[in-house]
Each structure stands twice: as C-alpha cells, then as structure tokens.
C-alpha cells in the first residue's frame, strides 16, 4: 500500500456567526494515499469546501490535526502551501486580466524567476490545451477553458497534491469528460494525488478510486465505489444513487431498497 500523503484526525471547524455557532465540520478522519484519486462526496452544506479550505491552510481548524505531504497543517503552513495546489469552486482568475499575465504572476508567487514563470506558462497552456488562448482576457474564455486555466494555475509549482472543489459544476457534458481525462492523466503521468469534491454521483463513480462520503460534517462512509454499493446499496450493481441515499439516511433505507439484480 502506498504511503499516506494526506492524513487528518478529528479535523473540525466551527464558525461563529451572528445567529450562533455553526459546526460546519465536526471531526473528519481520513487518509489519502499517494497517487490516489479520492472523491469527497456529500450533499450541499456537508462541509466539503470547509474541509478543503482547512487542508490547504486557507482556514484554521478549530479542532483536530492534519498533515499534507509530510507537513503539519498547524506547524508548517508554508510547507503545506508548497506541496499542494487548490482550485476553488469559483476558480481564481480576474476576468479583466490576460491569461498569460495571470499564469506568469502565479508562477512568480510560487517564487519562479520571470523567465521560468514565462516558460512554465507556455508549457502549462500547451499541456492543458489552451496554448492559443494565452493572449486573451480570462473573462473571454468558455466554461471548460476557464476550468483548464484554473487547474493550470494550481499546477504551476508541480504540486504533489491537487485539491479540486466541485471541478465540473456548471460544465457541459463534453467539457466534463475532458476534465475527467485530464485528472486521470495528471495522476498517471505526474503521479499527482488528486482530492476532489463533488456532489455528482456519476462523477464519483467514473473518476474516483475511493470515496469518502461526508454528511453534516462527519465521514458517513468510505471505500471503493463498488464496496460501498455492496455494503450500503445491497448489491454491487446497486446504483450509487441508492447507495448514497442509504448512507446519508435520506430516502430509502437499505432494507427498503429493491435489489437491482437478484
């Protein structure tokens, strides 16, 4: 078994709001192995984004510990930042700025020299299939092109771990399939560990090798898609939809699920 590249124990975050405390993440334990594509699956509001923001140092946990690529989240934030790339659901480019300028600035934020950053921008644009768009403004790109640019920004420093927050939300089917291919290729060619959140079951099924299902801020189940189907859906041929509903306790319970194939 490959070594753990991410491990978290009891990771928690409570937000203090005007209407009282909100326990967004209530104690997450998980391990992600090197070169794994992990699907972090859960309904809206389950705490997926909050967990990602903690693991990438954007948000301080209010409880628990974690380490990413051997760097402790609390003690070595810069180490964690150097090891991981992050694509937020909203992306992260300014629509009024040129594609090349954003990529070069990003390279320089990761402490590349001017020449290195320019070369890396060309290389990434070529690799991710938007070499022809370098001189366009970010705001003129299509949804699928924007996503590839966002991912390129996060790959600038060749991170060991890539965090993607709902990477295909809002994309058309063709762009989604392209993105799935890109994620697989990153893992296969560069050995990148990919940690992606989604609330699309087909995406989790098609892309992730292992799923961690979160609900209301805690891990509700984890395993390969087929193991989860067998255990919670009642059969390896159960739909992930039924499995998911069984796990999160909304909709039919396992006993009520009509076996899909008997």
């Amino acid at each position: 078994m490959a070594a753990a590249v991410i491990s978290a124990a009891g990771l928690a975050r409570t937000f203090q709001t005007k209407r009282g405390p909100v326990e967004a993440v209530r104690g997450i334990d998980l391990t992600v192995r090197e070169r794994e594509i992990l699907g972090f699956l859960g309904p809206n509001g389950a705490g997926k984004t909050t967990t990602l923001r903690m693991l990438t140092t954007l948000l301080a946990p209010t409880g628990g510990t974690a380490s990413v690529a051997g760097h402790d989240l609390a003690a070595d934030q810069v180490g964690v930042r150097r090891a991981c790339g992050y694509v937020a659901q909203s992306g992260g480019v300014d629509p009024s700025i040129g594609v090349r300028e954003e990529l070069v600035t990003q390279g320089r934020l990761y402490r590349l020299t001017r020449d290195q950053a320019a070369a890396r921008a060309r290389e990434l644009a070529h690799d991710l299939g938007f070499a022809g768009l370098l001189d366009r403004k970010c705001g003129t790109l299509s949804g699928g092109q924007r996503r590839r640019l966002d991912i390129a920004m996060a790959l600038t420093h060749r991170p060991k771990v890539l965090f993607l927050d709902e990477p295909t939300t809002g994309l058309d089917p063709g762009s989604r399939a392209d993105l799935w291919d890109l994620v697989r290729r990153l893992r296969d060619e560069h050995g990148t560990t990919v940690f992606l959140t989604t609330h699309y079951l087909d995406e989790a099924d098609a892309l992730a090798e292992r799923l961690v299902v979160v609900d209301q801020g805690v891990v509700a189940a984890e395993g390969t898609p087929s193991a989860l189907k067998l255990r919670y859906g009642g059969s390896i041929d159960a739909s992930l939809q039924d499995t998911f509903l069984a796990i999160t306790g909304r909709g039919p319970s396992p006993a009520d699920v009509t076996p899909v194939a008997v």
Partner: protein
Amino acid sequence: MLLHDTGLIYGRYLRQSLRSRFALLFGVLMPLLYLLFFGPLLTRLPLGPRGSSWQVLVPGLLLQLSLFGASFAGFAIILENGQGVVERMRVTPVSRLALLLGRVLRDATVFVFQAVLLVLAAVAMGLRAPAPGILIGFAFVALLTVALGSLSYALAFKVRTPQEFGPLINALTMPSMLLSGLMLPMTLAPAWLDVLSHLVPFRYLVDAVRDAYAGSYTSTHMLYGVLVAVGFATLAVTVGTRVFRTAGA
C-alpha cells in the same frame, strides 16, 4: 522575500490601474470641483494668521482626496473574493503582509499621482507654497492612503456585499471629513466642535500639512501630525495583515 512578493503584488495591481486610465483621472474630479467653485469664495476671508486661503484649502483637499478614495479601496476585495482571486493568492506561499502592502502601495501611488495633478491645478489658480512643504503634503497623502486602504481592505472581508460596504464607508467618511476641518480650519469653530475634532485623527494630519504649506516644518502641529499618521498607518497595516492571514474568518 517580502520585497519580492510586495513588488509582485504591487506590479499586478498597478498594471490594473494603468489599464483603466479613466478611473485614474476620475478620482481628482471631486477635489478639483472644490478647488474651482469653492476655493475662490475663500480668497478674501481671513482664514489663518499666515499665507493665503489656498494654503489652507489645498492641504484639506489633498487629504480629502485620500480620505474618500482610499476608504473605498475595499470594494476591489469584495469583487476579488467573489472571483476567488484572494484565495488563489492566499493558497500560495506568498507573504500575507505583501498581499496587503502591494495593494496599499499601489493605492498610495495612485493618490499621490492625483494629488500632484490637484496641486498643479491649484498653482494655476493662485496657490503659492514652498516646495518642501508641498512634498511633505504628498508624504501625508501616501501615509493616510496606506492607513485607510488597509482598514478598508480589512473591513471588506467582514462586510461581504457592496450594498452594505458603500453606505457603511459613507457613514464613516462624511463625519470624519467635517469633523477634521478639511474644508475650513477648526480654529474657526466654537469650542465644543474644536474639542470634538481633536478626537478625529485626520485633524492632526491636516493641521500638519497646513503648517508645511506655510513653511513651518518643526511646529508642534507637525510633530503631532507625523506621530498620528505613522501610528495610525502602523496600526492599520497590522490589522490588515491579520485579516489577510485569516481572511476574516
């Protein structure tokens, strides 16, 4: 690293400002209108013991430029938070202090540039003031911009919509302007107003710049002005950096 990072952030936002030339010039419009249509009303009033009314009005307009301009700097953060730009930068190893300093130094550059335009216009209208005094005035504009810009960015992380941010800033800047005697010196005020105005930090800055424009560089006003401006800027940058570290959470 701090210098490298600050330079990088500064460059990114300065290029952004240079791309919108119109916005760059638009900022001087309000103080310019005061200069053109309000300034001439003062020329025959006995505003101070020394110098012309222009030496009293122009320092106030310079700080007004910075007060109204820099306080609204946070609007950009609200937009960038929506676009994910701030998080994308915060997830890199870039210095948190640089994320703030690069932005406020860009703001200081923009407002000092506008201040130069305003002073040129004022000279054409009849302002005469010693060159060192004018340079000191620009330094105060820069310091005030750094201070107010930092606070404005910090506030923008807490108030997450432009609809709340705009009215809030207006509610803070309008009384500040009136109470600090930017338009007319507080020496004209009744005692209660004069006392009240000493609670507003800008009062000390405008008094110092008026002294500078009159050629007295070692007055008590100047000492207090420098202390308040430097202290205020240091405090504001500290608060602002903390907010960039935690993103207001």
